[in-house]
Structures are given as C-alpha cells and as structure tokens.
C-alpha cells in the first residue's frame, strides 16, 4: 500500500496502462515504470516525473503490448473452415429435418420482408417528390392564407402579379411562376399536310426561369435538354417546350431527330401558333406539377390580362422562390409582408398573407390540397404504412422465435455434446444466430426475387397516380440490413435459450429454461394477434367508410350521366343544335350545359354579401354557371322561389339561385331570401330561387355556399348527357355513345370528343382513400396469414409432442372433439386476450382517422365482434386442421413403439 503522502504517478495514465497492456506483461512492466518514477521524483520535480511517466505510458500503446497471451489450451477460432463446414452441415440437416417449420419460417419471413421492402420503396418514393432539383432545399412554394369570416382558407396558388413584383423589389431572389397545368387542344401538321388534333391536359404556362429552377439535375445529371436550352428557349412570347413524349407524338416522322423539330409550328386551341423552341426529356413522375409541355408565360399573360394583373383573385397560378444561400424563409416572409402592402388594396392586404413552403414538403402536406393533376400522401399515412411494415416483420419474426424455442429440446443433445468438448456460450449463440441468418437470407433472396415483378405490377395498376417505383442501390442495402436485423431479432432469444442449457442436463434431455420460453411464447402470440386483430378492425372500418362514400345520398343524381368536355366554340346556336340533335335520340333523356357538375374540379370561387351589407364580409361561395336543364337533369329541388326559365337566358343578366347553406350564412330563411339583392365579384342580382343543399364538395369537406347563374358567357366547360334507363338499367349503351360521338363530330369538328361516366369520375375523388383501403386489406390478409402459419407450426409441434398422451386418452375413451378442444383451448385463450387488449386501441386509432372526413361513419360495436369472430374462426380452422388429424390418429400406432 502506498501511503497518502507518497507521490504516485497520474492515475489516469496508470489506468490506461492497466487497461491496454496484456495481463501477462503488466506486473513487471508497471513495476519498472514505478521504480523509474520514484527515482525521477527525487532527481527532478514531481510534475516533471509525472509528465515523463505519462509520456512513457503513451509509448506502450502499440499492438505488441496489447496482444493478449494465448491460453495454454488454445481455442481455435470457431470460424475455421472445418467448423464453418460443420455448422453449415448441421444447419441444413436441421432445416431439412424440420421441413414444415423451415417452410413456415421461410415463407412467413419472405412475406414480411417483401411487404417491408415494398413499403420502404413506396415511402422513399413519396418522400422524394421534387427533391431532385439543384437547389431543391432552398426552393419554396409561396402559399396563400386567406382570412375568412369563419376561418382561414389555404391556397397552394397565389395571385399572378406576385412573381413580377418580387423580381422587381427583391432582386436577390430567384422567382418563377406557372399557370396550370391546363387542358388545351393542340394541332400539328405532318409532312403530307394532314392536321392531327390532340387534347393535352398537362399544358403548363411557365416563365423562362421555371426549367432552370426545376431542372431535375439530381435525377437526370446530364441535363434535361435534348434540343434547345434553358437560356434561349423562352425568348419568343409564343415559345413552347415539349417533352420527349409529346415531341415523338407530334413529329412522328422526325422521330429521334430533336434538333429538326425546333422551329416547327403547333396550333393552340385551333387559332394561336406556337413555336417549338426546345425538347426536354420526360420529367420523372415524382414531381408535384406534372407537365408535358411548357408554353411561355408571356403568352398566358397576353391572353388573360385580367387574371395576370389581379391581386385579389387566385386563378391556378403558382409562384416558386429560390432563396440565396443562408437566407432564412422567415426573413423572406417578412419582406413579402412589406411587398404586398405596397401592391394590394387595404382590404386584400388585411385578408391575404403569404408563407413559404419547402417544395420537398408539398407532397406530404395536405393543408393546401394537391397540385393540379397530382395527389398527396400525408405524413401520418406514411407513418401508418411504416408501422404496418414493422408489424409484419415482427409477426414473422415472432413465429420464428416461437417455433425455434418450442423445438429447442430437439437440439439439447447437440448442445450438450458441443459444450462438453469445449464450445463456449458465445460460440453456440453465434452458431444459432448464424442458422437464423441462413433462413433470413433464403427468405430475403425470395423476397428480392419477387420484388421487381411486384413493383412492375404496382406501377402498372397505379398509373392513376403516376406511380413510378423502382429499386435502387439503397433498396439492396436496406434489404441486406433488414435481413441482418431480422436474423438478430428472431435469432437472439432462441440462441440465448439454447446456449444456456447445462451440458449434463442437456445430455440427459432435461431441458431447463423451457418454462420461461413457454410464457414468452404466449406473450408473443398475444402480440401477434393484437396486431392482426387491429388490422382486421381497421380494414372493416375503412371498408365501411369507402362504402359510405360510394353510396352516400349526394343530393343530386349521378347515375346514367355522361360528362363531355365543353367545346371551344360556345355560340348559343351551336349548343342548341347539339342539344336538339341529341334529344332526337330516344335513348337520351336530357342535355345540360354548365361550368361543372355539382361536385366539380372546375371550381369558381367568389365573394358574396347582401347588397344591404356595407362592408366586405370575406365569405367564399362557389359560383356555377348553368342552364335551365341543370336542375331537372341532376334532380335538384327548389325549396323556395323558382328555377331558371328560358326567359332568364335571354336577359343580359339572370337572377341568382342560391343553396340553403348560403341562405343560412346570409342570416335568412329560404322564403325571406327571395327578392334580396346579392352582390358577388361578378356583379349583383336578385335571388329568384333557393335549392335544397346538394354536395358540391367531395365528402372530405362540408357543403359550401353556392350561387347558380343562368348565363352562357363562354364558361360552359362541361356538357352532361343523361341517358334513359329502363327499370334502373341502361340499355344499348355502346350505340348511344357512338351516336353522341357522331353528333359531336358533326357539330364541333374542331374539338376532341372525350367522355366519362359521372359516377365513375366521382368515385375517383376517393382514390387515395381507396388505395389506403386496398393496402389495409392486403396487409391485413398477409398478417393474419403469417400469424396463422405460426399457429399451425406450434400446434404441429404440440401435437407431435403429445402423441402418446393423445393415444392414452383415446384408449381411455376420449372423443375426437374432446381432444381437439384440449389442443386448441390454450391457443384460443391467447387470441381472446389479444382481442380484448387490441380492441380499444383499434377503436381509438380508427376514430382519429375518421376525423379526417367531414362526412363519416360511426364505428359500431358489431365491427369488433365480427372482426373477433373472424380472427378466432380463422385461428381455430388453422389449429383444428392439425388437431383433428392428431385426434383421429390410431392409438395403436402412437403407443406401439414404447
């Protein structure tokens, strides 16, 4: 012992030395150092001696001193080729011996891993939207918050003059603006002089900065330009840049020769010439503003002077801003506040505020709605999917744990022998985790094999949302990581249990640890069925909600109605001719021209107030331009006043028909509303009638105020044709459709004929919900399938183990039913527990999900009962399949070899 006053070297240096230097060298070496230290303390100062000691210690930090001495009985690494060969041989013998269990494990894990990979690829894809541009992380979409009397309205779009104002007043910002994407008719002329006509619905008006900001550089490193370039392409006001796809379509005779296509002329809407100034590669689908052709914004500005200069309105124009490096978006928002004050009138300035939204967030933020022609996936939904993936992998891994620990006794002799001849616990764990790794790898290889097929199928069946999934390097890495994780997750516990066997006990076949394994097994089965039950309940709830969407009384007729896009030439004479000719066909009941069907994408917003109200009220209403046939065709009902008559159409300005909601918001009753003068953005008129509320927004939202005008001002974008039905059935639809097409071609030779059935296009409003539903249904089936596989494996094991017991029972007179009950009871008990635990959680989470919908179902108790019965009966079927076989076995056979 050193006494306290005795100088001693720095403690940490000592510790370092003791930790680092191999034990067999440590004592004398450290002793020498101490001796030198003591001498130096007397020769020089204490501080210097300490420093020298430390310095000397640092010299020992070399591999030579670190290397530990080998023990007297050398333990060769268990990774020598001979051992590896042995391990592999044993592993494959084991897999072969338990064929059923191997199959269950591999099959279950493949399903889990495949689902997980698919979900991973999907989530990565959904998160990649608009991340591929050079300055994506500095680029923002300017969004508009508009204060209304009853809350804030969120717009993804802004007023058109904003971009130019920013460019003028904030020169360091890089701004670009777009209008659309819109639907337009394009004519091209081929070498023979034939005119080809196409309807394009992804025409984007954009300024010269757009393709520089949205350059897709990270997706297409060589640049998107096949001909022309970003600098010169937008010099002419009527310039158009085509994607490869459209270029090949318009100039099929020049295929591949993009430079030759420059300077060609296309015609927009049959009258305006456009010059092709550039060809770009087809942009990837993971962008929020899908376009196929870009026309110079100048062209739009010249042709829409009102919209392009109006600060109050919001007409499908989007503004993007790229900030200089290191400028915070908050600062820019402040600058925008100053800017809008300068340009807007006082009322708009108070009402409208601008905010910056990172473009990479657009796709997963539902607040502002989807961009035109695109869709959104909320972050919550992605989280939900990610948890689904984890659920499935967990369920499959639990199967593995259960089956392996159940069978552990089979390996007890092997473990005993291995331990007796010197295997350590660590080596045994390595061996068993390694065996799991083999199974997980086989499962992983299967998964990767079917993955590409599955992705192709998914992309194909989801073209409606332009899905474009493909595996890349990160998917392989993720897959490899997943396999390792699964191997460890599933292999660790069984490995611990098995390697824990005491050699003597193990050789005597008395296995300790069996009891703990059993209770854990029960726990895992409960968790598996909690997850499965949750998925079944969710599927039921989603299914009911979807059903509700499809069948909810919308307040208007949607059956047997065909929607056509309105012609460009809307001269009243033309429209009347079209209607008269159609009505001569006895299969057609009614024809109506309007700006849009009751629930429409062609939404026109307007402000509204009573003339007697002095101030602006900041109330938003939908405006529909209709004709006299609109009400009978859609089966709307007037509850006060009258509907439009033919005489309304002749007058320069008709009266208004409004809906109940608007009447309520004006503080009137339907009766008192008649005769009041209402002012909207487009002018004022007398309310002549009130219609019963019909749904004018999709069911995620509530009914908004709506004002109907009866006038043809060139906004009849839709034609609805109602077919005759006989006893609720349509007859001779192809002939009728053909007749309509012929009439269309005669009347509007310059336009393209396109039709949709109204009920089908309405169903598309819920496409994302439909997809969630499909995903839930598929994953719920997979999860219940994997969980049942596990049950099947366990019951097989139990039945085998209890063969003799069953034999004895049968000899003593037990019935088949009794034996099946004996075998099933333990498992069914666990499933009932799982249902009791999982039910309330499922109820809570699904109520939260339903909150997303303005019109929703209530979750009823029978859903839980039904889901419970389903889970129990599937599980019971699985179990009894094997249990009955065990019970039917001839006791003579099972008792013979004793």
């Amino acid at each position, binding site marked *: *012992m*050193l006494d306290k006053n005795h100088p*001693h070297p720095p403690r940490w240096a000592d510790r370092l030395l003791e930790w680092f230097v191999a034990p067999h*060298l440590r*004592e*004398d*070496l*450290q*002793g*020498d*150092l*101490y*001796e*030198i230290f*003591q001498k130096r303390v007397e020769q020089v100062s204490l501080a210097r001696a300490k420093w020298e000691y430390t310095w*000397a210690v640092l*010299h*020992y930090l*070399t591999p*030579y*001193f670190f290397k530990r001495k080998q023990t007297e009985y050398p333990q060769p690494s268990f990774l020598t080729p001979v051992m590896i060969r042995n391990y592999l041989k044993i592993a494959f013998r084991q897999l072969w011996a338990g064929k059923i269990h191997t199959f269950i494990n591999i099959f279950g894990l493949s399903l889990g891993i495949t689902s997980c990979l698919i979900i991973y690829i999907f989530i990565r894809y959904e998160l990649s939207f608009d991340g591929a541009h050079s300055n994506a992380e500095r680029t923002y979409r300017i969004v508009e918050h508009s204060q209304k009397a009853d809350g804030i309205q969120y717009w993804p779009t802004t007023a058109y003059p904003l971009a130019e104002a920013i460019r003028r007043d904030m020169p360091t910002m890089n701004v670009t603006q777009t209008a659309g994407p819109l639907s337009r008719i394009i004519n091209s002329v081929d070498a023979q002089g034939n005119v080809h006509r196409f309807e394009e619905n992804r025409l984007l008006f954009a300024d010269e900065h757009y393709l520089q900001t949205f350059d897709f550089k990270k997706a297409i490193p060589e640049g998107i330009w096949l001909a022309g370039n970003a600098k010169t392409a937008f010099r002419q006001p009527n310039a158009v840049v085509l994607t490869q796809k459209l270029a090949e379509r318009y100039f099929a005779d020049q295929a591949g020769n993009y430079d030759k296509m420059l300077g060609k002329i296309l015609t927009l809407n049959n009258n305006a010439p456009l010059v092709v100034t550039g060809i770009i590669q087809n942009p990837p689908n993971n962008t929020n503003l899908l376009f196929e052709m870009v026309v110079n914004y100048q062209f739009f500005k010249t042709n829409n002077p009102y919209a392009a200069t109006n600060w109050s309105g919001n007409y499908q124009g989007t503004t993007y801003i790229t900030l200089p490096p290191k400028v915070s978006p908050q600062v820019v928002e402040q600058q925008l506040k100053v800017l809008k004050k300068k340009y807007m009138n006082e009322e708009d300035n108070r009402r409208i505020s601008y905010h910056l939204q990172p473009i990479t967030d657009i796709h997963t933020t539902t607040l502002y709605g989807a961009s035109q022609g695109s869709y959104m996936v909320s972050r919550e939904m992605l989280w939900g999917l990610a948890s689904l993936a984890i659920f499935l992998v967990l369920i499959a891994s639990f199967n593995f744990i259960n089956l392996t620990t159940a069978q552990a006794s089979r390996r007890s002799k092997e473990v005993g022998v291995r331990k007796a001849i010197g295997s350590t616990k660590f080596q045994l764990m390595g061996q068993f985790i390694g065996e799991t790794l083999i199974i997980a790898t086989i499962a992983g290889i299967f998964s990767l094999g079917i993955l590409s097929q599955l992705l192709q199928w998914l992309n194909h069946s989801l073209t409606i949302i332009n899905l474009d999934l493909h595996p890349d390097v990160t998917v392989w890495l993720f897959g490899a990581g997943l396999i390792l994780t699964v191997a460890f997750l599933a292999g660790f516990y069984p490995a611990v249990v098995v390697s824990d066997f005491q050699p003597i006990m193990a050789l005597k076949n008395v296995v300790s640890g069996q009891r703990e394994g059993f209770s854990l097994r029960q726990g895992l089965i409960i968790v598996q069925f909690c997850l499965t039950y949750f998925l079944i309940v969710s599927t039921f709830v989603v299914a009911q909600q979807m059903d509700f969407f499809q069948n909810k009384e919308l307040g208007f007729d949607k059956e047997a109605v065909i929607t056509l896009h309105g012609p460009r030439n809307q001269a009243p004479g033309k429209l009347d001719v079209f209607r008269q000719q159609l009505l001569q066909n006895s299969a057609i009941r009614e024809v109506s021209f309007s700006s849009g069907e009751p629930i429409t994408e062609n939404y026109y917003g307007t402000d509204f107030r009573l003339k007697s109200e002095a101030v602006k009220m900041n109330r938003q209403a939908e405006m529909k331009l209709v004709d006299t046939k609109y009400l009978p065709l859609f089966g709307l009902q007037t509850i006060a006043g009258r509907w439009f008559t033919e005489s309304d159409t002749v007058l320069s300005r008709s009266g208004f028909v409004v809906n109940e909601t608007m009447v309520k918001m004006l503080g009137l009753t339907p009766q008192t509303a008649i005769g009041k003068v209402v002012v909207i953005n487009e002018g004022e008129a007398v309310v002549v009638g009130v219609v019963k509320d019909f749904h004018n927004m999709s069911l995620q939202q509530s009914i908004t105020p709506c004002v109907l005008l009866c006038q043809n001002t060139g906004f009849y974008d839709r034609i609805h044709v109602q077919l005759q039905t006989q006893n609720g059935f349509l007859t001779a639809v192809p002939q009728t459709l053909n007749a309509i097409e012929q009439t269309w071609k005669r009347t509007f030779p310059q336009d393209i004929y396109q039709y949709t059935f109204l009920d089908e296009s309405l169903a598309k409003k819920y496409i994302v919900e439909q997809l969630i539903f499909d995903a839930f249904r598929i994953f719920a089936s997979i999860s219940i399938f994997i969980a049942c596989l596990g049950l099947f494996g366990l019951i097989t094991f139990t039945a085998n183990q209890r063969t003799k017991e069953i034999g004895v029972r049968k000899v003593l007179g037990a019935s088949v039913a009794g034996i099946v009950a004996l075998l099933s009871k333990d498992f069914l008990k666990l499933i009932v527990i799982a249902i009791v635990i999982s039910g309330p959680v499922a109820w809570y989470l699904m109520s939260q999900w339903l909150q997303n919908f303005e019109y929703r179902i209530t979750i009823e108790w029978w859903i839980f009962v039904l889901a419970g019965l389903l889970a129990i009966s599937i599980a019971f079927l699985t179990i009894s399949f094997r249990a009955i076989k065990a019970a039917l076995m001839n006791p003579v056979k099972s008792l013979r070899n004793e």
Partner: protein
Amino acid sequence: MKRTFLGEFEEIVLLVVAGCSEDAYGVIIWEQLQQQTGRSITISAVHATLYRLEEKGFLSSQMGGATAERGGRRKRFFTVTALGSRALQEIQALRDQLWKAIPQEKLQLIGHS
C-alpha cells in the same frame, strides 16, 4: 539450420543482459543501455525487445519477490539462455571472420590500427 536474425538493438540488449553484474531486470537494463551507448532510449523499447528476445528463446525470465518501492509489484529477472549465448558467439565469430577478410592496406584506409 535456420538462423534467427538478431537486429542491432536486440544484439546490444542481449549483450547488456549478458554483461550485467547483478540480476538484470527492466530498469537496470535500461540504465545500463543508456550508459553504455550514450543514447536516450525509451523504456518501452527496452521492454518490447526483452519480451521479443524471450519469445525467440534468447532470454529466459523469472519473477522475483515483491518490493515496496514498486507498489508491491514483482521484478522480472532476465538471463541469457544457451541459445542466446550461442547466437552472440556466432555473431562475434562472423564479425571476426569478416574483419580478417579485409586486406591489410584497406584496413589502414578505414583507420584500423
């Protein structure tokens, strides 16, 4: 027979151990080495060389008794083994043989008296 190669430093350490009048252990050898060669040598280098020589069989060692000034830690005493002596002798013989091979006039040229 395969000869074990002895480095220059190893040779000197081996010679110092052989020439030690008292029982040779780390600190003594280290001090002797510095004295004899006049070089500054780190103790870690000496330790590494001693252990390596022991592994090669030129030295053998045994632990001594506990001492107070070393915090109760024992000393490791090194002695030259038969193999060690033979190696030293062989080296010397080789050197002598080489010296003898040098012609007289050249010997003078390199300043040998």
